[in-house]
């Protein structure tokens, strides 16, 4: 069912990214676990990746939401 899809709010990811992005928590919540670990281990990519993600995270969240919706829509295509 479409209700069971866990969509993430882009604004929430942005707030998380600004507050605890250095530890990769923003990447973890949008489902990029591997990159989250990388960000955590490198202190947010020496701080640079943290700042870059402030600008990318909202679009990334929307893309992830779209991917989840597409999987659902493909299942009920036929």
């Amino acid at each position, binding site marked *: 069912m479409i209700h069971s899809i866990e969509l993430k709010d882009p604004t929430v990811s942005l707030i998380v990214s600004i507050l605890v992005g250095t530890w990769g928590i923003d990447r973890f919540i949008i489902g990029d*676990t*591997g990159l989250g670990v990388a960000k*955590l*281990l490198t202190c947010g990519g*020496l*701080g640079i990746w*943290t700042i870059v993600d402030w600008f990318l995270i909202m679009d990334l969240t929307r893309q992830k939401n779209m991917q989840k919706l597409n999987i659902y829509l493909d299942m009920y295509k036929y």
Partner: protein
Amino acid sequence: MTRNRLYLMLGLGIAAGYGWVIWSSQNDALHSDLTPCLFKNSTGIACPSCGSTRSVLLLSQGYFSKALLLNPLGILMALIMVIVPFWLLYDIILNKDTLYYNYKKAEDTIRIKWVAISLILLIILNWLWNIQKGL
């Protein structure tokens, strides 16, 4: 994330990592207070991965136990920095996707609840240790 995108990011990340370690070793990072860490610069408190550059530098000079005591995450980072470039080259030259497959598998393993909770606890413990050491 596609295979090629992951490989590009890993390649750039590893290159940046080596660049950072070489720059730090030439600027005597072991005895300097300069840090790129946003958290430490804004709060004055060490973050979970603070000290890992110094740990990698100590390891490169052969001081394994000193590196482990400074920050065990440095050992993990050094292992990644040594293994991943070869793995990456192997996959690219032979046009395989073993690294991508294992990355996905590792992501799935980390997402298992008890694994995730144990890892988070370890990171928090290491963080408390970092603060106690005054890194």
